[in-house]
């Protein structure tokens, strides 16, 4: 049977403790050797009420609002409960009392003392005392007969005696225990117990078993034992219904038996094996509180059949849950209280909850008849009685027992299905609960707003992370603002309505250039602001009337729209507004939230139309916001950070589990911001809490993101995770460029590079694992350049089949791209017209908006195109690479190539003589040419180890005459640098003819020409030096073993220079002669490695006394080198 054991918690200082529940079970009362009695609302209560009763408390009992304690000054005292005021001394002993118990109706107490005496005292009149003498050693424990006839006591003299209370005579005694001289030496404190109700059985823990004796006859009925008990039992306690018995041992095991069947239904072990010295059943539910000799308090839940979740703590958990959102419960602080609530109907359940076996029914008329054999029937007994076991009192009282309740008569309809979850209250992202005296109203990437609300001061402190935004501000909080948001332009505050004042929105627009920086707006009557947020140039508030009201930063009221449900939270960023609201009622601890994401820019549109928000099971929302780059994110109470994946149809992807990084179970991370580039989750580690205190000032920590991919321990999984993470975290680039924001081109190219590198690594890994199909799949994700590289890699590692498939795929891709381009071209035409029409508007745009000019529009186009054909760039089909005005010169060739080439002229059939030029800048020219060569000469080289391409793909192009290509490239460079800030330029460019360009190219600077030349030289298949080097490589290597490729070339270079000019000429001649049939012969030779190419390039560059700046090629080259070097390293 499942029972939930909650972790133990500190209750008292080390030493003997005792525990009991109050009459209703609403709290746990413990006493300990620190002399305090503590009243716990529940186990998670961090602030129990303490009543000091003396130096040491040995035992406590609670009934009818009276708390009886046995303390070290040898007295038994009364305190009122729950106030804890002393209410007199009941009795005194010459030694301390070891155990005090109430009788069933709470009129009498019995106390057993170390001075061998047992006293029974009337609670209301302490003069009415009865003393029981007979024990020869300190009395260990006592138990009242529920019918108030007998009293059982156990003593260190080894006996257990049963006394008749009326005449204080010993009815019987058993020598059961080991003798000892003092309580502290006793093996067991032998807390015995009468069965509640009829009092038919007396349970006595004797060594490792519980002995049960029958009333009146006092004969031994049976033993309850369990194999898990290895040490003597210390305590027994009956369930209030009398069906179950629990015993705790000195080594910390706790066993629950069903007395009727004598089977143990529950076995648990104290987490630290301390001795259990106090056990108490909840008066209503299957819950056992226990304490140990080290002062810890623990709780077992769902004892019994466990079918009803409606135990006490569950209901308190539900309460906590409500309180959590109310924010007025300190339990929230300890963070553990966020148990999923059982349901708000628990309360209702209690009202007619007699269906629970473990509950003693309220007084039931039947009972009076059943108690036939006893004369001392009293009210108290009836009250506490249970009717379950009383039908046949003589023999088999254990058999009759089970719920003999007329259930249908007393029980109303009981709903047993899933229970609705209380809705979570609205909150401001990045705020701590409003009931705190010192709290964060908001902590975001702009700054911190703190609120101090104590006796002397009610104020708001605003602090900016970046002091250049605004200086720190201190505001009096006379209106009692509870909500706040902060942006780089304004501070937004809001308060709820009071009796006199309406709910107010208060904005401090500090970036305003006029003198009036503040404005306030009153909400209509009975409308309370529940959530607020700020965007760029606008503010929004959601109210209790299910409205979202938009304002400009200056306070002009703008759109209003209705929400489908009560708001949970809002967040704004730039032009985007995200609203999260309750779509409906969640069940079984889940929230049912919906999200709307809208763009409030010029083109207003809704991106997410109230889609369901995915939350972890039984969690609620804790943070909503945007990444610094503007991607919506949210965090739930289980610490899962999710981000909008715009690439996959606006779905949410979990990007981080903050709980994985927590050290302790109750530690949390409080998220304050998310950055996509660099990938940072900024949050504050909170030890043992969900949110940080204001003092000491918490420090921000940075967590990495991890997508929950499978098998991230393996290399493959790791790289897959990295690849997809890189993709996900660069979605914002597309989005931003689409919306006309500036995008850091370098970062983009970096990310593309990173992704392609990862793909290449994965490709190599799959190759190694002989997974060629997987290789092809991977290649499908690659860009054209990298596919070429992959083909090379495959052919090098002698996977001809793979290489062939890949090249087929490359061809396919190229043709796809070509058709895509055609379509785009047409689109572009339309788009331009459209833009021209709308262009006049942009002049009136606010300066706060990103400046939109044609350039950005173009960029937008680019981005759109990038979307569609990201991988399919740079095919030979491309007529001419469209110059990208944003690629910052030619610093990053990768960027230029990453953009799809746009055909400047719309004529399709025209042959483009500039094709080469566009390829020139391609960092992967050699590989591209490999493909060309391969396909062209496939028939001849089919026997070689090279990749074979039987198809003659459309990508093949003839070798282009050198001078022309030079000019073309120059032209393209010129284009790149042509300032075309106006649309006119765009159109002009479209009309440009090839001749014009060439003409312009004539005016091109020598620098560019040189670059072009250099590039063409790169393409030249062989130089004299190279041929020489190939011949002499072996000798160089034998002379200098251990040289790497570059060093070999260097060495070779120096040797080549030493040669006589004739010799060199001869080599050059040879090279020239070879060049004619180079392409054929080349196939049979080992191709120079990329490193050689590189070195050669460098060499050539060196030899040219040009003013060529390295800048023009470094970036592209480095990419090339890195990727290719990688690829060759693998082979």
């Amino acid at each position, binding site marked *: 049977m499942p029972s939930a054991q909650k972790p133990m918690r500190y209750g008292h200082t080390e030493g003997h403790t005792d525990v009991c529940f109050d009459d209703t079970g609403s709290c746990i009362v413990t006493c300990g050797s620190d002399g305090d009695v503590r009243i716990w609302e529940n186990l998670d209560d961090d602030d129990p009420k303490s009543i000091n009763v003396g130096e040491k408390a040995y035992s406590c009992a609670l009934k009818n609002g009276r708390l009886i304690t046995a303390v070290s000054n040898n007295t038994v005292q009364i305190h009122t409960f729950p106030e804890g005021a002393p209410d007199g001394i009941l009795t005194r002993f010459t030694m301390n009392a070891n155990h005090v118990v109430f009788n069933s109706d709470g009129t009498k107490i019995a106390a057993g003392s170390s001075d061998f005496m047992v006293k029974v005292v009337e609670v209301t009149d302490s003069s009415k005392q009865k003393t029981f003498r007979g024990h020869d050693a300190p009395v260990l424990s006592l138990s009242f007969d529920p019918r108030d006839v007998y009293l059982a006591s156990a003593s260190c003299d080894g006996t257990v005696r049963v006394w008749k209370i009326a005449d204080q005579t010993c009815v019987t005694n058993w020598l059961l225990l080991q003798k000892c001289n003092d309580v502290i030496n006793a093996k067991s404190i032998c807390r015995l117990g009468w069965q509640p109700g009829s009092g038919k059985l007396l349970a006595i823990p004797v060594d490792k078993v519980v002995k049960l004796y029958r009333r009146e006859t006092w004969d031994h009925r049976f033993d309850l034992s369990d194999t898990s008990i290895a040490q003597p039992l210390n305590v027994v306690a009956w369930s209030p219904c009398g069906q179950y018995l629990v015993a705790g041992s000195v080594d910390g095991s706790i066993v629950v038996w069903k007395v009727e069947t004598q089977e143990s239904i529950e076995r648990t072990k104290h987490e630290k094996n301390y001795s259990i010295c106090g056990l108490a059943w909840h008066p209503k539910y299957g819950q056992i509180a226990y304490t140990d000799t080290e002062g810890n308090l623990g709780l077992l839940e769902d004892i019994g059949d466990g079918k009803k979740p409606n135990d006490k703590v569950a209901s308190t958990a539900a309460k906590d849950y409500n309180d959590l959102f109310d924010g007025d419960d300190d339990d929230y602080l300890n963070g553990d209280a966020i148990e999923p609530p059982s349901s708000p109907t628990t309360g209702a359940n209690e009202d007619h909850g007699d269906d629970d076996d473990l509950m003693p029914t309220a007084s039931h008329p039947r009972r009076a008849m059943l108690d036939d054999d006893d004369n001392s029937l009293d009210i108290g007994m009836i009250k506490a009685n249970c009717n379950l076991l009383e039908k046949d009192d003589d023999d088999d009282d254990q058999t009759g027992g089970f719920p003999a309740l007329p259930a249908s008569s007393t029980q109303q309809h009981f709903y047993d299905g899933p229970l609705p979850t209380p809705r979570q209250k609205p909150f401001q992202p990045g705020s701590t609960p409003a009931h705190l005296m010192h709290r964060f109203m908001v902590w975001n*990437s702009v*700054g911190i707003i703190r609120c101090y609300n104590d006796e002397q001061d009610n104020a708001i402190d605003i602090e900016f*992370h*970046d*002091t250049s935004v605004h200086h720190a501000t201190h505001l009096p909080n006379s209106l009692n603002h509870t909500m706040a948001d902060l942006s780089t332009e304004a501070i937004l505050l809001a308060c709820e309505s009071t009796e006199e004042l309406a709910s107010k929105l208060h904005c401090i627009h500090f970036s305003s250039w006029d003198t009036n920086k503040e404005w306030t707006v009153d909400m209509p009557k009975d409308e309370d602001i529940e959530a607020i947020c700020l965007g760029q140039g606008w503010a929004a508030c959601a109210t209790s009337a299910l409205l979202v009201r938009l304002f400009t930063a200056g306070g002009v009221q703008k759109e209003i729209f209705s929400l489908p449900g009560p708001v949970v939270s809002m967040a704004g960023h730039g032009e985007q507004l995200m609203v999260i609201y309750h779509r409906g009622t969640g069940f079984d601890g889940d929230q049912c939230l919906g999200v709307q994401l809208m763009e409030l820019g010029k083109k207003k549109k809704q991106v997410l139309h109230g889609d369901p928000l995915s939350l972890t099971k039984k969690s609620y929302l804790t943070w909503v916001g945007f990444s610094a780059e503007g991607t919506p994110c949210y965090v739930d109470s289980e610490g899962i950070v999710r981000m909008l994946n715009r690439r996959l149809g606006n779905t949410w992807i979990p990007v981080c589990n903050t709980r994985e990084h927590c050290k302790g179970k109750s530690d949390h991370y409080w998220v304050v911001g998310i950055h996509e580039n660099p990938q940072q989750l900024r949050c504050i580690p909170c030890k043992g809490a969900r949110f940080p205190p204001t003092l000491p*000032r918490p*420090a921000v920590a940075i967590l990495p993101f991890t997508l929950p991919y499978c098998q991230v321990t393996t290399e493959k999984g790791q790289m897959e995770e990295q690849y997809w993470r890189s993709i996900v975290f660069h979605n914002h680039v597309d989005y931003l460029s689409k919306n006309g924001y500036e995008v850091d081109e370098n970062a983009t190219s970096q990310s593309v590079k990173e992704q392609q590198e990862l793909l290449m690594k994965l490709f190599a890994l799959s190759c190694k694992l002989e997974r060629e199909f997987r290789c092809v799949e991977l290649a499908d994700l690659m860009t054209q350049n990298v596919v070429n590289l992959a083909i090379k890699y495959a052919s090098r590692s002698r996977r001809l089949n793979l290489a062939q498939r890949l090249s087929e795929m490359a061809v396919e891709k190229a043709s796809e791209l070509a058709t895509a381009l055609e379509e785009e071209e047409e689109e572009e035409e339309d788009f331009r017209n459209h833009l021209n029409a709308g262009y006049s508007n942009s002049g009136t745009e606010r300066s706060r908006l990103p400046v939109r000019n044609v350039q950005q529009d173009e960029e937008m186009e680019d981005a759109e195109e990038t979307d569609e054909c990201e991988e399919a760039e740079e095919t030979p089909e491309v007529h001419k690479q469209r110059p990208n005005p944003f690629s910052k010169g030619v610093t990053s060739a990768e960027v230029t190539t990453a953009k799809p080439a746009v055909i400047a002229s719309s004529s399709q059939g025209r042959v483009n003589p500039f094709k080469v030029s566009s390829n020139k800048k391609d960092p992967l020219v050699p590989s591209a040419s490999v493909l060309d060569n391969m396909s062209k000469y496939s028939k001849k080289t089919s026997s070689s180890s090279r990749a074979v391409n039987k198809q003659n793909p459309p990508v093949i192009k003839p070798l282009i005459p050198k001078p022309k290509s030079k000019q073309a490239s120059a032209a393209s460079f010129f284009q790149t640098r042509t300032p075309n800030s106006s649309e006119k330029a765009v159109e002009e460019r479209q009309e440009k003819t090839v001749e014009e360009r060439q003409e312009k190219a004539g005016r091109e600077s020598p620098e560019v020409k040189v670059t072009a030349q250099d590039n063409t030289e790169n393409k030249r298949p062989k130089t004299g030096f190279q041929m020489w080097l190939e011949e002499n490589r072996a000798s160089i290597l034998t002379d200098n073993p251990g040289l790497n490729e570059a060093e070999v070339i260097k060495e070779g270079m120096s040797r080549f220079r030493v040669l006589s000019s004739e010799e060199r000429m001869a080599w050059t001649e040879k090279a020239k002669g070879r060049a004619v049939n180079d392409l054929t012969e080349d196939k049979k030779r080992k191709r120079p490695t990329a490193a050689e190419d590189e070195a050669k390039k460098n060499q050539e560059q060196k030899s040219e006394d040009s003013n060529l700046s390295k800048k023009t090629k470094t970036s592209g080259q480095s990419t090339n080198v890195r990727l290719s070097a990688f690829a060759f390293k693998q082979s």
Partner: protein
Amino acid sequence: MEPAEAEFLAEKELVTIVPSFSMDRVHLIGGDLGPFNPGLPVEVPVWLAVNLKQRQKCRLVPPAWMDVEKLEEIRDQERKEDTFTPMPSPYYMELTKLLLNYASDNIPKADEIRTLVKDTWDTRMAKLRLSADSFVRQQEAHAKLDNLTLMEINTIGTFLTQALDHMYKLRTNLQPAESSQSQDF
């Protein structure tokens, strides 16, 4: 070495600050610093931290050891042991002085920390003097002192070596003096 020089060396130690400005990576001879993101902790050398702090451009995050409890533990340990105990930082004294002078508002319980570090320092100096004393008294040829920080060595180094020099001279002069003494008489 002057204390100022030791302090200069200590300024190379890294401390964490929370900048209140935004700046890209700074490339310096001694290595790159930054990037500085407002609100995000970053490690910088003490010299920069102090400079930024003076210009109110950052908030200082005290080093982990600059905490009353930890320092109390260190002090107690230092008092308990006869030898020198390892210090949390090789520049604990200099750092304490620098950071407490310039950023005491960012360090909780600054005064207590100052006292505790001073206590530890005093204990160590007492030990140092004591060991120097016994070293001289017993006329040892060498002694080994572990876990001394640069600043501590410099407080006694020059003086002790000079003193030993002098003593040596005196001693060597004493021998002939004794013999001459008999001559005098």
